């Protein structure tokens, strides 16, 4: 019973809140926030909790998150949101990996998990910069015919794709390492 409670209050709920808040602050979402949280919760439960450590479901989660945003917010959801979605997924995977490394030396798992959950929300100190970054990223994404953007549209896309592709590999690598442990 205590395992289920720990799993729920230190696992599932913080992670759903994390994803929902990240998207709300980054995209400046003002409508249908509760619907968004519920959809993310259901998708997360089906992809991550039901089929743990299967990397295809992690990647499917990225696709489904984009699908949720597209269904709820239609034209406001753009292709760059795939890159935006992959950032919190990478961060959460990295924290889980660090959690696993530390766990080998310490015996008190709930304390480590609490610290992990706190670290999960530390980036929100800079939440005001999330939306600014998103607006700038969006502005630089399309080709600027007047040539005012500091970076070429194709260069920005190439950089985004390189990071995204490497991220796919790293997430898979970390998942495999966690399964082995």
């Amino acid at each position, binding site marked *: 019973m205590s395992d289920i409670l720990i799993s729920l209050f230190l696992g599932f709920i913080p992670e759903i809140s994390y994803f929902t808040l990240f998207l709300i602050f980054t995209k400046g979402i*003002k*409508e249908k926030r509760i619907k968004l949280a519920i959809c993310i919760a259901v998708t997360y439960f089906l992809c991550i909790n039901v089929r743990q450590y299967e990397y295809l479901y992690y*990647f499917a989660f990225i696709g489904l998150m984009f699908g949720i945003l597209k269904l709820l917010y239609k034209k*406001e959801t753009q*292709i760059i949101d795939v890159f935006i979605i992959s950032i919190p997924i990478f961060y959460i995977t990295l924290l889980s990996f660090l959690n696993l490394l530390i766990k080998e030396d310490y015996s008190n798992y709930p304390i480590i998990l609490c610290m992990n959950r706190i670290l999960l929300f530390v980036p929100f100190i800079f939440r005001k910069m999330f939306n600014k970054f998103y607006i700038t990223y969006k502005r630089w994404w399309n080709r600027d015919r007047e040539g005012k953007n500091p970076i070429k549209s194709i260069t920005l896309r*190439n950089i985004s*794709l*390189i990071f995204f592709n490497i991220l*796919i590999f790293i997430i898979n690598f970390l998942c495999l390492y966690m399964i082995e442990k």
Partner: protein
Amino acid sequence: MKKFLYLLPSYIFNILEILIVVKIGMMIDLSLTYILIILIPFATIRLTAKKACHYKDWRKCLVWTILVIFTIFVASKVGIVVGVLVSMFNALVLTERGDIRDFGLLGWKGKDNSKYAVMDEYIERNKGKDTLIEFEETLKRIDPVKYKIYIKKFYEKKSFEKISDEIEEIKDQRRITENLDIIYFSFTMFLEMKKELAIN
């Protein structure tokens, strides 16, 4: 014949590019079949989708192509299905289909050229600037109801349904569209007048 000779350097460049990319794939222990399964969807989408993005400088083109394809191969180490999907996604982003407002969930819906999208973009780029503030203050003074609609639509990003619920004076969603059309017309006229005054 003349056209062929004119295009010959670019054909040679493309062939060399493919050979370099295949060689890189083999260096990271991918079989030729695997490499082709990854590259064919990439090439097909780039050729058939709307306007592929290119660099004018061949050196930049070569460097970035190698980097992107290399990372696609790295990602495809996860699995063939992931590799193909990543390859297709990468190809799509590197065409005009990957432009903002151009990507549809169920296929190619084309560019969103609606007047509200144009106004949205203008407001996003010019928030806090004098011209926009002047327009908003004028609108607020002349017609407070239209100003409310303007704020709810372009700043609060609310749906027509919510706007009609929140503004007492307007109950019918069709009237929201009528009012927005008037706002859009006034907005474009205001900008034109400003341009004229600046020139004179």
